[in-house]
């Protein structure tokens, strides 16, 4: 029921705003429509509503609350990572290592606790340290060398991909980690990272709650704290930010570490929902996160975006991914569909921004 409620606004409020901007020469007062469109998340809200309506109409299975819960779960695993990736993008940087960092974090937790201790929480804490360290390394390399983050994190991506596989094989003799489900603290950790609860007869995954909570936190940080202000500034104009006393290096490193935190969280979710981790996974996910952020209205070059947008961006992904299944289509089409969506969303964003910021 509540799931239906969460998404209801997407359709219920289906914007009465016909995107018909007046081309007036006034600089002082802009119409409500234009001011609404100037918000970075409005374009993606329209897109998400359109995708939802489309599948709601063509795939009857989507109309059940159970399916909605699955769609939201799917979205949340993308969405939790898309948030810090979006913040980082607003801060003007990329992280291509985000996908394998998730798996790396899960591997670290799993193997350390299995090999050395009895309690999974030791591994969880260790994995957090590893993830934050990877983020800090990325950030430090970017601010110190001045190299494009694309290059630096491409390097980290390849390193992590190799390390994940090699270290796992070295320690377990296998490409997957051992099952940790009978260890101390597993149930506890599972209830935090991978449990589900009953909501009006529908089983909802806890990650959905975390996702929305993180989104609220990210929005608050971005719009109402100094750090958020600095994030926009370092992404919008690094030199100007430095000239007025913004700690540019600190901000960028912290943003990379936030991505590390997200990777840790999703990694823990994967570990505690499947009990074991496949070391070769995660490749390609980083592009999904980046795409969700871009669809969510974040400017690829930095300095513009929101935390709410990527929530809808991730929802669009989850919706399409599951919607195709529910509609009974060949799931092979998923990526093609995504590509079209990405291009479409980017074009809409471009148009919206030009219209809205035109004087």
């Amino acid at each position, binding site marked *: 029921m509540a799931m239906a409620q969460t998404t209801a606004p997407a359709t219920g409020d289906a914007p009465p705003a016909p995107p018909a901007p007046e081309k007036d020469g006034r*600089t*002082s*007062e802009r119409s409500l429509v234009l001011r609404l469109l100037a918000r970075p998340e409005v374009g993606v809200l329209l897109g998400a509503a359109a995708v939802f309506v489309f599948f709601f109409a063509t795939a009857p299975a989507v109309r059940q609350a159970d399916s909605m819960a699955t769609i939201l779960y799917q979205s949340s695993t993308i969405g939790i990572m898309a948030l810090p990736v979006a913040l980082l993008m607003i801060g003007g940087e990329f992280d291509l290592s985000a996908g394998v960092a998730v798996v790396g974090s899960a591997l670290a937790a799993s193997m350390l606790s299995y090999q050395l201790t009895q309690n999974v929480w030791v591994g969880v804490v260790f994995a957090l340290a590893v993830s934050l360290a990877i983020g800090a390394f990325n950030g430090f390399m970017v601010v110190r060398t001045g190299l494009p983050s694309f290059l630096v994190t491409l390097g980290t991506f390849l390193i992590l991909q190799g390390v994940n596989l090699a270290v796992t094989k070295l320690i377990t003799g296998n490409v997957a980690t051992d099952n940790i489900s009978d260890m101390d603290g597993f149930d506890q950790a599972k209830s935090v990272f991978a449990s589900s609860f009953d909501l009006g007869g529908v089983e909802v995954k806890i990650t959905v709650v975390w996702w929305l909570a993180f989104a609220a936190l990210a929005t*608050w940080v971005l719009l*109402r*704290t*100094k750090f*958020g*202000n600095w994030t*926009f*500034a370092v992404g*919008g*104009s690094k*030199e*100007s*930010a430095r*000239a*007025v*006393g*913004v700690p540019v290096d600190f901000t960028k490193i912290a943003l990379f570490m936030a991505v590390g935190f997200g990777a840790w969280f999703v990694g823990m979710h994967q570990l505690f929902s499947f009990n074991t981790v496949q070391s070769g996974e995660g490749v390609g996910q980083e592009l999904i996160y980046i795409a969700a952020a871009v669809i969510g209205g974040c*400017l690829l070059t930095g*300095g*513009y975006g929101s935390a709410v947008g990527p929530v809808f961006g991730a929802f669009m992904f989850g919706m399409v991914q599951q919607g195709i299944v529910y509609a009974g289509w060949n799931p092979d089409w998923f990526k093609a569909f995504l590509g079209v969506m990405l291009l479409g969303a980017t074009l809409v964003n471009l148009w919206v921004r030009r219209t809205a*910021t035109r*004087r």
Partner: protein
Amino acid sequence: MTSDTTGTTGTTGTHGAILADSAPDDGDRPLVELRSIGKSYGNIRALHGVDLAVHPGNVTCVLGDNGAGKSTLIKIISGLHQHTEGDFLVDGAPVRFGTPREALDRGIATVYQDLATVPLMPVWRNFFLGSEMTRGVWPLRRLDVARMKETADAELRNMGIVLDNLEQPIGTLSGGQRQSVAISRAVYFGARVLILDEPTAALGVKQSGVVLKYIAAARDRGLGVIFITHNPHHAYMVGDHFSVLRLGTLELSAPRSEIGLEELTNHMAGGAELAALKHELGQVSGVDVEELPEEEELQPGAS
């Protein structure tokens, strides 16, 4: 003005303290003084033997052609570079700044032509960027949006800048307005000496007028202003003292009472070069060479 900044972060606090310090100043001592200052980059002498004094409530204009050493001079004062000869005094005490932050902490603010704002951010966020006002204790410490908007609006109005909407991205403002916001920001955050690096160079006639107005407003608030330009007409409208740089040395240093616009223009262009130019123009048909100096003196100022 200082009371507004109390309760904000460290940066602003420091500026407040500086303002309090400067209160008992006798009005005549220069805020910033350069004594036969020079700068060499390896074996290249970019600047040599330059004297300059900036008094509170005065506009000191530094003029010069491209490559005359204007940029080097500002970079020394704003803390980006260090001088290699002579003395640099702030409030009578010799200093040597390592970073722009140090200069800023002594109340010397530089407004660069483009290096001051983040185009996609709203005006009020730009105004307070790097020195945001906050409220609440740490985990919940948040921006005091209402107070920042109010203060930014009031400060901008004080300088005579009226904007309809502080939420609009600063990139949508005109060049002159943006420059003015940057100036009023520097004034608000406790600048005692304002260095303006060719603020009118990229602007049209009307917008230059707007910026000149704010320079005058800043001067009337008791700031020492260093106005770098290569337009003698703009300089003469607001300047109290004129220094003309030429090939790294001071060619002219005179108070307003001792120099007229024509002489200034002459110095600026370099008398000999102007004569040569006149000669060249004389060979182009249709240019009335005889009238030239007076025409040049009158026209841009009037239009």
